[in-house]
């Protein structure tokens, strides 16, 4: 884990002091932030484009609900990824863990125990894989990139092994009825997404655990000297990421009514992209969950616009790349202008 230069962080800062163990970091979340404003701008522009091209169907309740449901799984994975990246790490294994959890929870044996065991199974598998990642990284001293790369390969391999690479259809109707249903008119999946983000935000911005996460990512050595058990903390952060994957697996299985080793393909890239355009530093120590949420929504809205206008997916991939660059540039420009104005 390379600790980022404190001076560098301060230079890039947008009126925020770099976090340190003893200092509360309230501004990480709700407070108005120029970077977030630029990002929100991108999202609004995309929504405007969607509305302009398909006024009849884009901003309807049904489509918004569909977009949010599609954003749910990758959104939850991105919450875990935000924790990991803020703590100075990276997790390449999230997509594979989603696949493994989705397969494990839909085996004939698991389904025979009923919906509660299916849910428990997905969460435990996710948490377990995440903790294995965390232990290898913190106590095994393997760099996160390598440790999670190994999990990326082996978790999907195990998923293929368990399922025989078949698509396992969910026959347990109690599970599908609940997770595909709605509560107070809002689909359960969207409630779950909101809940995970809310809990994540509180943990990150309002608890000791959250402040320690910033501290470990900002400067692991300083954090250790300040009395934080960096190893245990790192292991737990990867555990959270794994748990998020377990929750995402529930969502994917609910959406597709099936578990398969092909679930969660490229989730790691989508999640990293969302987290990074959301303004979280890849080197750790700074980041926001709100930014991550907007990042996830930007890609979901983009996908919807392209499908609704019946455009080819190849152009969509190009646009995705352009948006990643544009969003990061835009954040940089707004941040710089703000600094110039201040000085």
């Amino acid at each position, binding site marked *: 884990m390379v600790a980022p230069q404190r001076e560098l962080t301060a230079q890039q800062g947008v009126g925020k002091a770099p976090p340190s163990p003893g200092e509360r970091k309230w501004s990480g979340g709700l407070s108005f932030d120029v970077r977030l404003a630029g990002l929100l701008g991108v999202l609004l522009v995309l929504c405007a484009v969607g509305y302009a091209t*398909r006024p*009849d*169907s884009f901003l*309807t309740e*049904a*489509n918004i609900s*569909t*977009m949010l*449901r*599609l954003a749910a799984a990758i959104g939850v994975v991105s919450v875990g990824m935000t924790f990991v990246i803020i703590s100075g790490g990276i997790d390449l294994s999230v997509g594979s863990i989603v696949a493994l959890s989705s397969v*494990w*929870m839909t*085996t*004939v*044996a*698991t389904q025979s*125990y009923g919906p509660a*065991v299916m849910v*428990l*199974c997905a969460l*435990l*598998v996710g948490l*377990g894989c995440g903790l294995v990642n965390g232990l290898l990284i913190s106590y095994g001293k393997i760099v996160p990139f390598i440790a999670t790369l190994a999990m990326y390969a082996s978790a999907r391999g195990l998923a*293929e092994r*368990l*399922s*025989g*690479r*078949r*698509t*396992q*259809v969910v026959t347990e109707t109690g599970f599908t009825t609940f997770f*595909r249903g709605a509560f107070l008119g809002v689909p359960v999946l969207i409630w779950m997404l909101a809940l995970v983000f809310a809990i994540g935000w509180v943990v990150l911005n309002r608890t000791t655990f959250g402040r320690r996460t910033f501290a470990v990512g900002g400067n692991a050595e300083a954090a250790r000297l300040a009395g934080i058990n960096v190893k245990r903390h790192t292991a737990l952060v990867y555990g959270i990421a794994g748990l998020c994957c377990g929750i995402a697996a529930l969502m*994917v299985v609910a*959406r*597709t*009514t*099936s578990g*398969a080793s*092909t*679930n*969660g*393909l490229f989730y790691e890239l989508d999640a990293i992209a969302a987290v990074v355009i959301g303004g979280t530093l890849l080197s750790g120590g700074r980041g926001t969950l709100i930014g991550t949420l907007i990042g996830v929504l930007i890609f979901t809205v983009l*996908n*919807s616009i392209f*499908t*609704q*206008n*019946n455009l*080819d*997916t*190849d152009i969509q991939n190009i646009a995705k790349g352009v948006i990643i660059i544009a969003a990061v540039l835009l954040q940089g420009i707004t941040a710089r202008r703000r600094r110039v104005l201040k000085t």
Partner: protein
Amino acid sequence: MSSLDRRRFLWGTTAVGATALLAGCTSNETPQSTGAALAGASGANTQPGKQVTIGFSAPAADHGWMAAMTKNARAQAEQFSDVTLKATEGTNDVNQQIAQVETLINDKVDVLVVLPFDGKALTEVGRQAMDAGIPVINVDRIFDTPLAYRTWIGGDNYRMGVNAGNYIAEQMKAKNIANPVIAEVAGIDALPLTQERSQGFKDALARSGFSVGPRVSAQFTSESGEQQTSNLLQGASRIDALWNHDDDQGIGVLAAIENANRSEFIMVGGAGSKNMMDRIKADSSVVKATVLYSPSMASSAIALARLLGQAKGIGDLAEHEIPALITTYSAVVTKDNVDQYMDVGFDS
């Protein structure tokens, strides 16, 4: 200190318990559902002839269709008292498959049945076998040159599209819909097989003056099928027909349709999984038909290999010899004829 020990003990027990629980959840034993689709020999060909040893090599049985191919080949071989099957372990490693075929050549099998992982990569070893005097039956993924096979048998992606298009056009006309909105959920667009299917679909619809409306491409996985179809349905408030290229991704496509509470259209599947056939038979969902790309071709390949080994022709044809090219027909399975096709439906 004792409180710490107790904490450790509790955590330890929890971890062990969780592991035990998870370990109990890995079993995937299902009651055997589908039988294999077998070729019945007819006429003089039913009589057991000289013993034929058939070498069989195929990719790993890593999805429903491929698993059915291997299963069918084995079941067909067991059907004949005069056939010995030497099947190699399925592999997606081209080098390993080449080595396997070479081993079979060295074993001096009478006929080879090869479903290559990559037709181009295995062309050379196919030629080697032919040069050694072993006739090769090339299944589905075709070799680069006819010198590498005695007979090719495989499916027809273009006609899958054509037959799906024809069926949909017919249904639209029967319902008197003048300007139908016809949607398409394709597979991976970069693959030639997807392009052929889409082209056939387009051409067939054009014959009736119809065209493809909203179109998305998924990844042959149920998750991508669900995602792409969800968006497609939001963009098109009314559609009349939908063709989905692949029944494996069809599980996700159907989930999206159910989620969106849509039922105003008819859906046609592709490949012919047992799951889709069950739905067609039940007739309680939007799925009204599926276009076959049937793994029964593997059974036929074994039957052909036996005839080749015994130097017999196919009955009913005037030809003395087995034909060099056999393209299977992409039949349309509907409620009316689903019973007779249940045997070729494969588990996804």
